[in-house]
């Protein structure tokens, strides 16, 4: 069975390394990068079930990265995990399409559960798009 895949994006290397190790121990396929530009490139190279994104990062911040990731992959399940989010950040991220905004430190079991839910949501969106495409083809053929 395919395991849930997740991309962690956080500029605090020690934090993201440790979180990745703990998530792998729980059976997830985890990769991490430390900036927004690398996150965009990784998401173009591989399909992830979820992306867990920090907000305050050097260069491109989490909100800017979120916008580009969702432009590239509208169905991508992105959650913000931040120690510094304001209510304004949370509202903006949700309006832009983030599925969740979590505060650091978060309970690892909760985070893993949210990633598993994200995978289900992504798969149902894929299924919906496939059915819509079948409907579209059938209607163009007059069936």
């Amino acid at each position, binding site marked *: 069975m395919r395991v849930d895949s997740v991309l962690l994006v956080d500029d605090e290397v020690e934090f993201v390394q440790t979180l990745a190790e*703990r998530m792998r121990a729980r059976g997830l396929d985890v990769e991490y990068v430390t900036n927004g530009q690398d996150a965009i490139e990784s998401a173009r190279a591989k399909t992830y079930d979820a992306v867990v994104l920090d907000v305050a*990062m050097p260069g491109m911040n989490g909100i800017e990265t979120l916008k580009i990731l969702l432009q590239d992959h509208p169905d991508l399940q992105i959650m913000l995990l931040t120690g510094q989010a304001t209510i304004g950040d949370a509202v903006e991220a949700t309006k832009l399409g983030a599925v969740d905004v979590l505060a650091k*430190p978060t309970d690892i079991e909760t985070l893993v559960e949210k990633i598993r839910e994200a995978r289900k949501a992504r798969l149902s969106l894929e299924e919906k798009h496939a059915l819509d495409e079948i409907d579209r083809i059938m209607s163009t053929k007059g069936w």
Partner: protein
Amino acid sequence: MSGSQSRRKRNESLAFFGTMIAGQSHELTNVLNIISELAGLQHDLLKAGDDDRPVDLSRLQEVASRIKNQVDRGETIIRNTNQFAHSVDLPVAVFDLKEAIDRVLFLAERSARLAQVELISRVPEESMALENNPFSLQQAVFICIDLALRSATDERRVTVGYSLGEDGAEIRIVSADTVSHDDPVTDKLGFLGLLLADLGGVLVKGPGEEPHNAFVLHLPLHPGGSSASDEPVRG
């Protein structure tokens, strides 16, 4: 200083104080988040024992040492923040210029990291006693660093150092890139001039002059100025 200048100084000082404290609270939050994950990892490693698997003692030791490193990092943040907060205690005090500049560099490191600029210290090893307003001095140096960070383009390096001149200290903030002109709305350079006048100092060279990449601040050893016979206190 006129009433509007005094109001501006008060507002700018409060904003500077808030920016520094908020930045360090974010840094401390990062430290605590790392410690939280490392403690979680220790817990995960110990749980192996519950499942009759051998507990990896060397890994536990490694994680404990990483926690200690983060505690040290946190202590440094708290020490610098505390010293910075106390720099408002007295309007004029005898303080070590080296410590004050080192502290500004430490506090500005977060801004530099987020701006992807390397902040380089060329601060001499020896101490230099100065009698002045330590908070305003830190604010003046930070304004220069901040303008240099905001203007960084290609090289993305800013160097900060000082030397002892005949009648005071000369602080230099030099960017490897051209420092673009100040935003006329915020007019930080205008405010820098005001701060320096209050400190009895002067902006010897600003980014408006060739090669448009450096600030040179001159400060007397004492608030009322000093003569060449004044001997700096060296540590």
